[in-house]
């Protein structure tokens, strides 16, 4: 009998009988372990590994929700989270990690009460976007004023299935956008640290009003295990237990991996991560721009600039107070060289990256010595090429019409010290986002090329969805950690994330060449799309996160 039961337990079959029969054994086990482990083992409903934006936002979302605020939640972070609350930046300093938050993400942050914690003067609205091909000059212009209100549309049906009556977050989105005629910005730019500040403020607030939320900061996860054999048949037997380096062990109903690209939670759940590394590095930096050359259409509202070079896209995102954030995707070698270059030459090179031809840039890259010092006078060389271009543009008649209309990116005058940082670019998608009692969100689930600025937004969309799925299971009385309760999360997020990953990956590959026929075809396509208002509108709405309507149960 007992061997039969053991087999049943191993194969995952459970009957009320078996658990009843084993009740005494459970008691024995607890008695025997209590002496040495009871003080250090704690049970939780949700343990979130990783206190980054995705992890903290999930903790916040669960705590702010009426149904899930009764859960016992733990948030584990290896670094010091309390630093974020003390964050008090100077107005003339910006962190180099800046994200663009889509209207959908902002609606979510508003919903969980984080947005109101943020300092408005450090959030820059992005009203327009200029994207162009560095090889051919073909250009597409996005303008917030051209985006229609929230309604079902073509791309939405392709990527999300037709949902007739979106509610929940999309209602909030509508409120955010204001049903008024006034157009919403395309995105909001702000520092990741700033979002973290808002999140931690909220978390402290939730703790103060009695939500059972434990934050383990400066704490590392040493190992994650599940009970094996006999013990697995206990009521909490199949729950993952997370061993921390402070001696504690957390046993949890639901384990959330928000622990980044190399997610230990994902390895524990034996979920494969598929994808590849781009042979590119992204270089971020905080730039100071010449305000007189800035073409911001309104007060504090900027334009995001992105130029596709054969080595990768270079983007300048607007910040306030005459600052901008740079994300320059390029070869690993050039990224390292750019980091070492003296500030003056670096700025000259950034300006050239937005105007000079790829051949001219190539020469400049080659002219950086092994010690990071330029071998030639960058400014002189760039000025000469600019004067040649300007002279030709000024005499070009018919093309002149379009050239005059083409806004130029602002001129970079300085780069903030110690903000230049390169990081490798990758594409990854987990083969699955859920396993029994384990769920992945954010970078742990998927990693994307930064060219569309979608990584963080995808992560927040994951979090929004997961919080909603957990709430639904609670309301229906099901076990939140059970794989069947988690499946709606996976089915809702997997396809949109994959679609975004694929789109961004194809874009990056399409533009990673200067092969003539490809350049011609992509320029023709880009110019055509630029002229086709409705299609452009759809693309914008897709990028703004207005297309995805969650499939609600």
């Amino acid at each position: 009998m007992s061997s039969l039961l053991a087999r049943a337990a191993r194969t995952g079959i459970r009957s009320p009988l078996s658990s009843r029969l084993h009740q005494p054994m459970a008691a024995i086990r607890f008695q025997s372990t209590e002496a040495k482990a009871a003080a250090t083992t704690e049970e939780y409903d949700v343990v979130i590994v990783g206190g980054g934006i995705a992890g903290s936002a999930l903790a916040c979302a669960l705590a702010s929700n009426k149904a899930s605020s009764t859960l016992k939640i733990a948030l584990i972070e290896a670094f010091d989270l309390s630093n974020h609350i003390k964050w008090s930046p100077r107005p003339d300093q910006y962190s180099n990690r800046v994200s663009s938050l889509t209207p959908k993400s902002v609606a979510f942050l508003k919903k969980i009460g984080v947005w109101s914690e943020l300092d408005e003067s450090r959030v820059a609205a992005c009203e327009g976007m200029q994207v162009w091909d560095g090889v051919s000059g073909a250009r597409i212009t996005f303008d917030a004023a051209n985006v229609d209100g929230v309604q079902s549309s073509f791309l939405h049906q392709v990527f999300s299935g037709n949902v007739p009556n979106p509610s929940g977050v999309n209602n909030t989105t509508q409120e955010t956008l204001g049903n008024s005629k006034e157009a919403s910005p395309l995105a909001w730019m702000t520092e990741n640290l700033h979002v973290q500040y808002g999140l931690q403020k909220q978390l402290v607030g939730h703790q103060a009003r009695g939500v059972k939320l434990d934050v383990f900061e400066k704490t590392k996860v040493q190992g994650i295990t599940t009970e094996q054999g006999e013990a697995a048949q206990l009521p909490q037997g199949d729950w993952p237990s997370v061993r921390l380096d402070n001696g504690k062990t957390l046993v949890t109903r639901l384990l959330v991996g928000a622990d980044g690209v190399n997610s230990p939670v994902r390895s524990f759940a034996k979920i494969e991560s598929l994808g590849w590394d781009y042979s590119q590095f992204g270089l971020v930096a905080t730039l100071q721009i010449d305000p007189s050359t800035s073409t911001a259409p309104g007060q504090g509202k900027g334009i995001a600039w992105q130029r596709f070079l054969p080595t990768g896209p270079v983007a300048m995102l607007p910040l306030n107070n005459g600052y901008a954030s740079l994300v320059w995707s390029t070869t690993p070698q050039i990224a390292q060289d750019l980091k070492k270059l003296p500030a003056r030459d670096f700025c000259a090179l950034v300006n050239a990256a937005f105007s000079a031809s790829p051949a001219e840039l190539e020469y400049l890259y080659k002219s950086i010595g092994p010690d990071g010092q330029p071998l030639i006078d960058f400014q002189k060389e760039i000025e000469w090429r600019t004067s040649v271009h300007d002279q030709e543009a000024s005499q070009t008649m018919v093309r002149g019409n379009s050239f005059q209309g083409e806004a130029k990116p602002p001129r970079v005058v300085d780069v903030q010290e110690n903000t230049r940082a390169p990081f490798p670019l990758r594409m990854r998608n987990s083969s699955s986002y859920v396993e029994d009692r384990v769920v992945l969100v954010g970078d742990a689930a998927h990693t994307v090329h930064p060219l569309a600025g979608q990584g963080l937004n995808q992560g927040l969309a994951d979090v929004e969805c997961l919080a909603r799925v957990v709430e639904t299971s609670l309301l229906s009385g099901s076990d939140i950690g059970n794989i069947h309760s988690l499946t709606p999360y996976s089915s809702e997020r997997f396809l949109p994330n994959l679609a975004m990953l694929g789109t961004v990956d194809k874009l990056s590959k399409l533009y990673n060449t200067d092969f003539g026929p490809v350049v011609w075809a992509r320029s023709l396509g880009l110019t055509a799309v630029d002229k086709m208002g409705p299609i452009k509108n759809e693309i914008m709405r897709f990028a703004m996160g207005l297309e995805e309507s969650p499939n609600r149960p």
Partner: protein
Amino acid sequence: MSARIFTRTNPSALKQCLARTGTNSTLARSTRAATAAPCASLFTFRSPLEAPTGKLYEGHIPISPLQRTILAVGSAFTALANPLRGDMVAALGETTSGIFLNRIRDQMLQDPEGRRILRERPVITSETMQLDTLRQLPDGTFGREYVRFLDDQQVSPDTREPVHFVDSEELAYVMQRYRETHDFYHTLTGLPVTVDGEIALKWFEMAQTGLPMTMLSSFFGPLRLSSEERKRLFNVYVPWALENGSTSKLLMNVRWEEWMEKPVEEVQRELGVRPCPQV
């Protein structure tokens, strides 16, 4: 048979030719006003009847894409029928040179010498070259052999056809420089000024720049050769051209003016070119 034909001409023939293809057409101008507004920014589809630029440099003749097509086809046929029409050969080169010149300019921008040439824009005329001084140089120097070549062919650097149809000031200079330095190539390689010699030079340039444009003359030029010339071309010159063209320094990046006093052998060694086998 002279290879000067490739670029040396009288300009009046050109003007006639242009008049025939309808340069300065009032049609083009009147259409511009009507179509510019919707089409201007859509440069991929700009009207074929309007010239894309104004006059950019001395000698520039702005023409519309339609005129360009007619001129290219017309000059191709004329040049094939009568290779002595240097104006037609030049017009053919210019009207079909868009990508070619761009790539050459890019290759020049990659090289410090090439950049210096683009920046300083040296011009080669009998005046700037000081041919009389070059004649005083000892035998075997590059300058002396260059003048000897000019004298043998009874030409001077001043008889080059100016550039007319390239719609960019800098690219027009590149085209001009390309023509002006042509005689140095003969001195450097020792290729004779015959049709097969010129075609061999085209093969050399093709191997060097990797550009398909030079292929045109490499492939179609031999149609006009006698079988003996063709045999010499493909057995001797082409193998030499492919080998040397792919290993030597890009000749557009050479400031020839500064190499005049060096012995020819040293110039050949420094540029990585072996002299062409003499037949």
